[in-house]
């Protein structure tokens, strides 16, 4: 049996934005990964449409949700009174996965955009950029599964 811990009410709004943003970001990443898999396996017009959609969901789904998640993380970080000195380990995991994650999201988005442009002119050509973008989305999903573990279990 475990005892419940009461959280101050003023933490709730930034927590809602942080968790909600993270959920939408991860959901959009799952969809982007699935669409990229379909794009790799498709040909012709289907491939053009899927490549274009993968770029769009990374750009207008994942990135804005990331900004909400990350901004709210800073908000609640300041409310909880952390200073950067002797912060618990789970905060470090959060920073590493989110900041490194942003870099991978940007690379994946750029590659998906370049791939979409190339596929539009040659729908049945090679798709190395699509494959790399797809691989990065899977790496991101795995990293965020670890981040969710760190945020919920809060290892010290």
């Amino acid at each position, binding site marked *: 049996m475990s005892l419940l811990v009461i959280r101050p009410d003023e933490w709730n709004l930034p927590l809602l934005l942080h*968790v909600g943003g993270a959920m939408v970001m991860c*959901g959009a990443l799952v969809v982007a990964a699935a669409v990229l898999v379909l794009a790799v396996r498709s040909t012709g017009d289907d491939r053009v449409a899927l490549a274009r959609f993968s770029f769009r969901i990374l750009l207008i789904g994942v990135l804005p949700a990331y900004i909400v998640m990350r901004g709210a993380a800073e908000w609640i970080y300041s409310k909880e009174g952390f200073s950067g000195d002797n912060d618990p380990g789970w905060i470090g995991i959060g920073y590493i996965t989110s900041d490194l994650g942003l870099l991978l999201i940007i690379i994946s988005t750029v590659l998906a955009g370049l791939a979409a442009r190339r596929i539009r002119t040659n729908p049945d050509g090679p798709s190395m950029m699509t494959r790399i973008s797809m691989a990065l989305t899977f790496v991101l999903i795995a990293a965020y599964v670890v981040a969710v573990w760190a945020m919920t279990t809060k290892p010290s």
Partner: protein
Amino acid sequence: MDWYDTLLYLHVLAAFILVAANVTAWAMYVGTAGGSRPSPLVRMAPMGGLLGVVGSLGVLIFGIWLAIYVKGYEVWDGWVLAAIVLWAIAGYAGTTLGRGYEAFRAGEAPAPSLALHLILSGSILLLLIDMIWKPGA
């Protein structure tokens, strides 16, 4: 990691999976312009359905388990009962959406309505608000 941490992690992870199912439904809605044009995105319908089943069952099972396990919470607390009602609404909307997109993909029915998407998203948002604020706890 103790038993409480494990249950909480699985509960939250299931909620993330449920939201991924919701985003999949929105992707199919946007990709087909509300069902007005064909799109290869409807090939995601089986994945969306699977995510919805795993996410919604995980949220319910581990959520009730937590309510029983944690001293101070009870399954009959108002905010827990509200969550169960919202879960049922989300489950109805999600199941109808999943079947609707499978039928749309097979060319047997029009695409699911915007209202169903909004009901699913709204109920999940209210669930998240309920879980964070825990009114009455």
